[in-house]
C-alpha cells in the first residue's frame, strides 16, 4: 500500500532519500539525509496523494560504535490515505543537530525535546528546546549507550523559591 509513498519520495528527492527498503511486517522505510529532512517531511505532508497528516512519532537510537552514531526515526502515518512510512536519519556525533520539523507538525514538540533530553540531539528551530523528563541540572544523556545504568548524579543544591518559573533565585528573601 505505502509502496507508492516511498516510490514518490525517491522520485521527488533522488539525492536526499536513499536505501529504501521494505521493513519487517511490510512497513516501508527509507533513509533521509539529515539536512533535507524538513523538505522531505513537508512534501510528505502536503502531497495530495500521501497526506502524512498525523503528527509522527519521533524517537532516536544510539548505535554506539557505528559511524554515524545516532539515528533519528520518524514514524509517519496518514489518517486520510492510511499509509505508513518510516524515515531514518543518520546523525553523526560530531555534528549532533538536525532541522526541527515542528513547523510541519506541531505535535512533534515533545518528541524532539525527548530526543534532546535522552540523547543530546539538538533540533534547530525548535520553539522550546529544554529537557523534557530530566531536570536542568542533570549531567549527561541517560539513554546514550555509554551512560552507565547505575550512574549517580551530583546533588543539586536546594533552590530558593523566589522565581516560581525557574530557580535558583537570588538570596535575600525568607
Amino acid at each position: 500500500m505505502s509502496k507508492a509513498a516511498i516510490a514518490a519520495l525517491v522520485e521527488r528527492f533522488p539525492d536526499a532519500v536513499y536505501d529504501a527498503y521494505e521493513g519487517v511486517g511490510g512497513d516501508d522505510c527509507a533513509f533521509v539525509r539529515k539536512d533535507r529532512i524538513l523538505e522531505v517531511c513537508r512534501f510528505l505532508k502536503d502531497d495530495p496523494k500521501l497526506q502524512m497528516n498525523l503528527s509522527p512519532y519521533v524517537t532516536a537510537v544510539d548505535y554506539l560504535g557505528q559511524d554515524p552514531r545516532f539515528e533519528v526515526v520518524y514514524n509517519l502515518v496518514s489518517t486520510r490515505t492510511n499509509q505508513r512510512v518510516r524515515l531514518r536519519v543518520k546523525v553523526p556525533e560530531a555534528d549532533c543537530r538536525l532541522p526541527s520539523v515542528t513547523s510541519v507538525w506541531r505535535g512533534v514538540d515533545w518528541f524532539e525535546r525527548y530526543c534532546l533530553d535522552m540523547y543530546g540531539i539538538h533540533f534547530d528551530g525548535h520553539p522550546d528546546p529544554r529537557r523534557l523528563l530530566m531536570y536542568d541540572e542533570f549531567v549527561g544523556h541517560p539513554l546514550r549507550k555509554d551512560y552507565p545504568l547505575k550512574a549517580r548524579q551530583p546533588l543539586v543544591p536546594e533552590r530558593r523559591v523566589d522565581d516560581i518559573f525557574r530557580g535558583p533565585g537570588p538570596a535575600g528573601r525568607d
Partner: protein
Amino acid sequence: MDRETPHGLAGEDTRETPGSAGAGLPAPVLGKERTARPASELDAPLPSKRMVVNLGPSHPAMHGVTRAVVELDGEIITDMKLDIGFLHRGFEKSCENVTWTQCFPYTDRLNYVSSIMNNVGFALAVEKLCRLDVPERASYLRVITSEIHRICDHLTLVGAMGMELGAMTVFLYSIEARDMLWDRLAELCGARLTSNYARIGGVARDVPDGWIEKTTRTLDRVTALRDEIDGLLTRNRIFLDRTRGTGVVGREEAIELGFTGPCLRASGEPWDLRKAAPYLVYDRFEFDIPVGSNGDNLDRYLMRIEEMRQSDAILRQAFAQMGPGEIIVKDFRYALPPKPLVYGTIEGAMAHFKLVMEGIKVPAGEAYGYTEAANGELGFYVVSDGGGRPYKLGLRAPGWPMLAAIPHMSKGHLLSDLIPTYDSINMIGGEVEQ
C-alpha cells in the same frame, strides 16, 4: 424590556438595578479588557496584576505528579507551562538491560489502569520483529482482556472526571464497576492492578472453568452501572456547563497536534487502528467507531461512554466466536516449554534454561508495532541486535501529545476549565513520564 431576562452570565445583562455596577452595559467578555467607561469612581476596575500559580506536582487534579505553572490574569489563564518527569522511572533504559520477557512487568506499569493493553502492544511489536504468528485462541484472549481493560480505563476517566467536577457518586459507581472487572482479571492472571497476561507468542494461561459465564454476568452488571453513570452525568446541568465548549480542539488542529484515540475521534476524525489497520482478530467483530463533532470536553466524555458500549459488544461477540485451541506457540525458541517437558526431557530442560538465562533471541532488525490502546496509538519501536535483550525500546505513549497540547487548549480560558480538560484527555502519569 420586551424580551425575557436571561439568567446566568451568558447574554446581555439588561437588568436596570439602581446602583449595580455595569447595569445596562453588555456583560463582561471573559478574557478581554473592559472598554466601557466606569460610571463612577466606585465602578472603576480594581488594579490587577498577573499572578503565577504553581499547580502540582502534588495536586489532586494533576493525576499523578505533573507540575503546571500557570500565569493568571484574574481567573483567565494567559500562559502555561508543563513540567513533567516527576514519575520518570527510566522505562526504556531499564528495558535495555533486561531480557525481552522481563520487559513485560515494566509495560504493566506504563498505563497502570489498562495494563494488559500495554502487554499486548509490546508483545505484538516483538512478534512483528520475530515474524511470529500467535494461535487464534490466544488472539481472542488478548482481545477479550484488552477490551475489558479498555472499559476499565474509560470507567476510570469518567469516574475521575465526575469526581473532580463535584459528582462523587459517579466515582463510586464507576470504581465499583471497575473493581468487578478487575476481579475477573485477577481470576485470570492473579493480580488486580498490574495484571500481566500477554507473553511473546501467546498468553500466560487459559481461562478458568466457568469464567466466560461469570464475566458475562459481570458485564451485565457493569452495563447497568454504566447506564446509571450516563444518566447521572450526561444530562447534569453542572457537568454540562463545565464541559461543553471548554478545551475545544478542532479536527485539523487535533491531527496536527498528534492526537490519537478517543480525543482525536471526539474532534471528528474517524481514525481507529482497530479498523484502519486491524490487528489480532479485530476484523471479525462488528462494532462502530463513535465520532464527535465539537472536540470539547463533553465530546471526549461522551466518546468514552459510547466506546464502553462498543467494547461490550466486542466482548460478547468474542465470547461467542472463541473456539478451543492452543494459547501459546509451540516454538520453544520463544515460549517456555510446559513443565512436564522441562522436568522430564533434556530438550525441555535445555530450552527452559536458555530462555530464562539468555532470553528470547529476537532476530536483529527494527520494527514499529502499534495498537489502539484506551487513549490512542500505543507504539513500541523495537530494535534488536540479535542478543537476548532489546537494543532499543522506544515507547510512543498515547497521552504524550495530548498532554503537550494542554497549554494550547487552556490559554485564554478560565482556570477552572483546566480541570475538565485535564480529565478528559486522561493523562496517565505512568505512560507519559515513562
